[in-house]
C-alpha cells in the first residue's frame, strides 16, 4: 500500500473489454474524507474505474483496497461503498420513502427507527416531507437528491457518484455543486466523483485524477492540475493552453533558457520537470497569462508583436486570436476589458504586443498524440 493516510487504494488496476483496454494500470490513493474526482472525456475509463470500486466490474489485473481490505471477491452488496447512479436508478415501483429506505432491509429496524432514518436522510438532501411522493412525480433535481439520500442512509465509507449532475440544467447544476460540497464537508465521508466537466471537477474537488484512454495521467489538487500540468493532454483538457515548440538552452537555478519558435528567447521555471540542455520541448502558456497592449510596451522582459486575427468581446474580458510570425497557430489570449474592444470598431488586423512573465511558462514533454 502507498501513502499512510490513504484509505481507498487503487493499485495497478486494469480492465479490458474484448480488445479494448478500458482502464490501464491505474494507481490512485484516495485519502479519508477527501472529495476526489475522476475527470476525463467520455470513454476515458473513469466510469469503468468507478464501477470497479462499487464492485459492478471486476478488475482483470490489480486490486482495490478499501480501508486496507482487498475488494476482489467482495460483492457490491457487502462493500462499504454506495453509489449515486448517472441515471439515478430511482425504483419506479416504490415511492420516495421506500426508495430511500431500500438499503435498510438488513438492519431490521423498528418502523419508528426506520422512519426516523428516512426523515433524517431526506432532511439532509432538503427534501423533508417528500416521503409519500411517487417516484414518477419528481423533477430531475429531486431524483438526484433522492438517489443521494438513498445512498447516504447506508452510511457508506465511500460515496461513489457517477456524473450525478450531468442531467441537470446549468443553474441547478451550480446550486447542487455547492450543496454537494457542503454535504461532503459536514459528513466527512470520502466522495469519489466522476465527471467530464473540468469546471465542475475544479469547483468540487480536493484532488483530481485526470484520465485519458484508460490511464490516470495526473493526480493532483485543482490548482496544481491547472498551473502545473505534467502533460500536454492534461494541460489541453483543463482550460485552454498555447503550445509552442522550444529548444532548451542553459539550465541553472531552476530556470531554463529557451529558444521558442516564433517567440524567440525566453525563460521558464522548470518546477521539477526533467529538463536537459538541447532537448526539444513544449513551452505552454495559458491565454490569461499573456497581456495584450495596442502600443509597444517599454522595458525588457518577454515581448512579441502580432496581429489580431479574431476578437470576441465577452464583457468582463475579451478573447483574441493573435497571429505571430513564425508560429503555425495563432496564440489564444484572454485579456481583461480593454478600451479598444467591443465598441464596434474592426479589430482584425490591428497590430498588438504580447508580454508575459517568466514564471508563467510551463515546460512539457511532447506528447505522442
Amino acid at each position, binding site marked *: 500500500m502507498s501513502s499512510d493516510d490513504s484509505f481507498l487504494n487503487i493499485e495497478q488496476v486494469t480492465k479490458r473489454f474484448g480488445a479494448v483496454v478500458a482502464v490501464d494500470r491505474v494507481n490512485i490513493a484516495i485519502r479519508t474524507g477527501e472529495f476526489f474526482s475522476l475527470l476525463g472525456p467520455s470513454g476515458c475509463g473513469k466510469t469503468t474505474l468507478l464501477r470497479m470500486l462499487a464492485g459492478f466490474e471486476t478488475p482483470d489485473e490489480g486490486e482495490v483496497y478499501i480501508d486496507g481490505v482487498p475488494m476482489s471477491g467482495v460483492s457490491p452488496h457487502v462493500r462499504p461503498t454506495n453509489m449515486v447512479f448517472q441515471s439515478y436508478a430511482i425504483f*419506479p415501483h416504490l415511492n420516495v420513502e421506500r426508495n430511500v429506505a431500500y438499503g435498510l432491509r438488513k438492519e431490521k429496524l423498528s418502523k419508528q427507527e426506520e422512519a426516523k432514518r428516512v426523515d433524517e436522510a431526506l432532511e439532509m438532501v432538503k427534501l423533508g416531507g417528500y416521503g409519500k411522493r411517487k417516484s414518477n412525480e419528481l423533477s430531475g433535481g429531486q431524483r438526484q437528491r433522492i438517489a443521494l439520500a438513498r445512498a447516504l442512509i447506508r452510511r457508506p465509507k465511500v460515496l461513489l457518484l457517477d456524473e450525478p449532475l450531468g442531467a441537470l440544467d446549468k443553474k441547478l447544476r451550480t446550486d447542487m455543486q455547492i450543496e454537494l460540497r457542503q454535504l461532503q464537508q459536514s459528513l466527512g465521508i470520502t466522495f469519489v466523483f466522476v465527471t467530464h466537466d473540468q469546471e465542475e471537477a475544479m469547483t468540487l474537488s480536493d484532488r483530481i485524477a485526470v484520465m485519458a484512454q484508460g490511464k490516470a495521467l495526473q493526480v493532483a489538487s485543482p490548482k496544481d492540475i491547472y498551473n502545473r500540468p505534467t502533460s500536454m493532454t492534461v494541460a489541453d483538457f483543463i482550460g485552454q493552453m498555447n503550445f509552442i515548440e522550444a529548444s532548451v538552452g542553459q539550465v541553472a537555478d531552476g530556470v531554463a533558457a529557451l529558444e521558442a519558435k516564433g517567440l524567440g528567447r525566453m525563460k521558464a521555471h522548470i518546477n521539477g520537470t526533467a529538463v536537459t540542455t538541447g532537448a526539444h520541448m513544449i513551452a505552454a502558456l495559458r491565454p490569461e497569462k499573456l497581456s495584450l497592449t495596442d502600443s509597444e510596451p517599454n522595458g525588457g522582459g518577454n515581448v512579441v508583436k502580432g496581429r489580431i486575427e479574431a476578437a470576441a468581446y465577452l464583457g468582463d474580458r475579451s478573447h483574441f486570436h493573435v497571429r505571430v510570425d513564425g508560429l503555425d497557430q495563432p496564440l489564444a489570449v484572454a485579456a481583461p476589458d480593454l478600451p479598444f474592444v467591443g465598441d464596434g470598431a474592426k479589430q482584425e488586423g490591428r497590430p498588438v504586443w504580447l508580454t508575459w512573465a517568466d514564471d508563467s511558462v510551463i515546460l512539457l514533454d511532447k506528447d505522442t498524440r
Partner: protein
Amino acid sequence: MSAGGYMHRPNRPLMVYAIGYLAFLYMPILLLPLFSFNDAIYIAFPLKAFTTQWYQQMFANDAMHAALMNSVQVGVSASVLATILGIFGAKAVTRFRIKGVKPVLGVVMLPLVIPPIIMGVALLILLSQMGIPLSLITVTVGHVLICVPFSIVTLMASFEGFDKSMEEAAADLGDNAWWIFWRVTFPMVFPGILASLLLCFTISFDEFIMAFFLAGTDPTLPIFIYGQLRFPQKLPGVLALGTCIVAVTFTVVFLAQWLRGRGPTAPKTEGN
C-alpha cells in the same frame, strides 16, 4: 412526427384498401357466430330462425368439457414452465455480455423456424423409442418447446425496458441476487411475465399439430374440434364452440394489451 405533414396526407385509396383488408381478415371469422345462431344443420344462406340450441348442445357435451379441461391443464403447465425458462434466458441475454451467445441463442430460438410437424414427429419418435407413453405430459413438453422462444422474446423486451442500474442500485444498497430479484427485478418485469404467461397459454391452447402427434387418449380442445369436423351434423356445435373461443381470445388479447400499457416505466437517461 407531426400529423398531416405534407408527405403523409391522408391517402384515400390506401384507406379503402386497408378497410377491405380488414374485411378479408374478419369476414370468415365473423361467419362463425352468425351461423352458430342459425337454426339449420347445414351452414348455408339464407339464414333460418334464431336458435341457441347449438350452444346448449355444446355445453352439455361431456367430451368437450374433458377436452377443454385437458387444454387448460396443458396450457397452464406449459406457460408456467416456458415462462420460468424464459426468465432465465432473457435475463442472461440482456444482463450479461456473453461471448458467442448468438449461435447459442439460435438453438433456443430454433423452434421458431422449424415446421411444427417436424418437431412433432421427432418428439414422437424419441418418446416411442424410449417407451414413454403418450399423454398430456408429452403434449406439455412439446408446447414448452414452442413457447420458450416466444417467452424469451417477450421477456427480453421487459428486461431491456428497464435500466440495468436499477438492479445495480439494489446490489449497491445491500441486496444479494435473491433479494434483488424479488425486490426489484420481479416487480419491474411483472407485466412482461404476465404477458409471457398469457401469450404462451394462448399458443398452447390453440396448438394443434404438435398435440396431434403427442397426445395419447386424452384429446386437447383443438384435437377434439378436428375430430368433430369429420361429422357434418357436429358442425353447428363446432360453430358455437368456435364463437366462444373467439370471444374469449379477443377478451384475453385486450386484457394483455391493457396490462402491457400499465408496466412501470422509468425515464431512461443516456449513458456516457
